[in-house]
């Protein structure tokens, strides 16, 4: 049963969906504060290359090396995001242009490629990679085993993060303030909430989580580095946040759906279906467009859940 196509598609959905969950949650938090990160793909690539750099350079117990790699990826992602936050929050520069600038800077032919090329990371194998943890030996249980009990640590982390983010947004005072900042920064400011502080913190979190999501590619999915390894997952995560209406619980389902779409091709090929790989590779991209169309028309005319001042810079003078 555990080798059937359905189960392996669900498992693939979780594998390819996890970076979308992690990066999407970070982006969701940042967008709730009113800041959109178009450069999220750039943060992810920086995280991916940093984590891979660690696992090729460091030696030690596997758990330690991998922890250091993931934390390093988070820190690097966060640093890049802080540059972005400085430009958009402190200076008040256009979020779209700065986001594109970050993507071009860090993207597939930018700084991430520079690091990978200088450290000769292309074409070498990692000494360490994230392995599935068979929890309590339950991984062999039919159906539920491979889905729930045979995942790697970052997948379990993402499962913890979803309820944590939900609780934070909906049941804590800080979460309430965060939403206030994203909806009406002027009112939040008048209440004594520091708009800039909230925006900085949540953009930093978005960067850190995107960095971790990127590390998932070089630590779990492929255990190798090549330029642009995330192949648009950051952009898909960005779209995902829109069509799950900024709700963390729906984000999980949406991310796994897109993960499964990404996994269709490799799975069918492993089963001897000879169709050109591109036919399946385009599925996530086309489905993203379809989902955005649905989100903007059929499901709702009003932008349900979209923070009111998303993408707008706030300054007291009102310029």
């Amino acid at each position, binding site marked *: 049963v555990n080798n059937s196509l359905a189960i392996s598609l669900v498992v693939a959905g979780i594998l390819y969906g996890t970076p979308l969950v992690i990066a999407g949650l970070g982006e969701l938090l940042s967008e709730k504060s009113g800041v959109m990160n178009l450069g999220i793909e750039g943060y992810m690539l920086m995280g991916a290359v940093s984590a891979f750099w660690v696992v090729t350079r460091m030696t030690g117990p596997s758990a330690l090396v991998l922890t250091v790699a993931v934390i390093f990826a988070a820190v690097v992602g966060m640093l890049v995001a802080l540059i972005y936050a400085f430009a958009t929050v402190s*200076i008040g520069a256009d979020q779209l242009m700065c986001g594109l600038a970050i993507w071009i800077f860090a993207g597939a032919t*930018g700084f991430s490629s*520079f690091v990978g090329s200088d450290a000769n990371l292309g074409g070498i194998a990692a000494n360490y990679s994230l392995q599935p943890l068979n929890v309590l030996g339950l991984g062999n249980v039919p159906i539920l085993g491979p889905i729930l009990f045979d995942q790697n640590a970052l997948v379990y982390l993402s499962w913890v993060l979803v309820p944590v983010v939900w609780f934070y947004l909906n049941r804590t005072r800080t979460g309430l303030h965060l939403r206030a900042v994203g909806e009406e920064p002027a009112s939040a400011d008048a209440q004594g909430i520091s708009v800039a502080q909230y925006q900085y913190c949540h953009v930093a979190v978005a960067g850190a989580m995107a960095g971790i999501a990127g590390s998932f590619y070089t630590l779990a999915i492929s255990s190798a580095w090549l330029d642009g390894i995330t192949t*648009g997952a950051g952009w898909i995560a960005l779209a995902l946040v*829109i069509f799950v209406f900024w709700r963390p619980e729906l984000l999980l389902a949406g991310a796994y759906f897109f993960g499964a779409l990404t996994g269709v091709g490799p799975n069918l090929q492993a089963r001897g279906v000879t169709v050109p790989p591109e036919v399946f590779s*385009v599925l996530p991209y086309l489905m993203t467009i379809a989902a955005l169309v649905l989100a903007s028309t059929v499901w709702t005319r009003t932008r349900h859940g979209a923070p009111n001042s998303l993408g707008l810079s706030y300054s007291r003078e009102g310029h």
Partner: protein
Amino acid sequence: MTVAGFRFERRAILPWWVRALVPLISAALALIVAGLMLTATGYHPLSVYRQMYDIAFGSSIAISATLVAATPILLTGLATAVAFRMNARNIGGEGQLYVGAAAATAAGIAVGHQSSAIAIPAMVLAGMLAGSVWILVPALLRAYLRTSELITTLMLNYVGGLLVTYLIFDSTSYVRDTTSAGGLVYPQGRMIGYSAMWPAITGSGLVIPFGFLLGLVCAAVLFVIMRFSLLGFHIRVIGDSTSAGRYSGIPTSRVFVTVMLISGALAGLAGASQVGDLTHTLDPRGLQAAQYAWTGIVVAAVVAYNPLGVVPSAIIIGGLVNAGLALQGSSFPLGLVGAIEGIVLFGVACGLVLSHYRPARTSYRRPSRRLEPAPEVSVSPAKEPR
């Protein structure tokens, strides 16, 4: 905000020299940061820059190579300029360029044995048409269903990339070489006909590719459209305020779709020029590695989306790209050029805001005692007009 005795106050008018400083300071910032990157990785930035300058502008051969590199960037820069001027965020230039290149290759093969007067226009039209077709769906979605064009155009980049990869590597398509021995060993594109290869204008040691001349014509035409035509007026009004455009009766949806189609056509033409001028075949790997459309966004943003300004901007950044292609991997790590472009764009985006402020001494604002007698003037009875 007060920093070291200065505060920043908003300028009433933005002088031209402040505008001109923005790209210059951004470029300087980019060179400094890239220099730090090079120093950190054990290279000597000044000698790298020297080498890059020699490769890009050091001789007439270098300038010719720079013009070749500048050609697709000029066209994608124009594609960005026309769209971004009215806030139509077409970031799908990459995809439009790929399909433009594919269509132009097909046309170049199909009519390549005819005379050049037929073959070259056919390639140009095929490239432009394919680029417009590629952007048509996102444009209509945005205009009539209000689906953000930002992500839909971007997603089609990946689809376009996969399409051209499929045409060469995973199918026996019309544009793939299936006859020669080399093509059977390693998948490669079929060459376009001899008369479909675009001519180059040579003179005084310079080689100016035909695509570059096309780009110059497009820049001039776009400038005239933007400045003197009704469409250009509509574009500028909508770009400054969409609601103002709508209230004044401009058919915003129709203008939006038109502009997006023009933008897509220019990006497609960039793909066609790459095939006609340079590769003479469809090269999916090379096209995807080059990222001409992203560079085009930088080129256009630097000159605030002015079509004529795109020309010098494309030549300068074309020099950077040319040097990158020649030296990347051997003289410095890959990715340096993209990083520089990103920093330039970043600096321009920040500079656009910062240039609206100027430093002023804080003491200037402090209420001065000498102003005390002033009320006498202001409360004096107003003189009767006339």
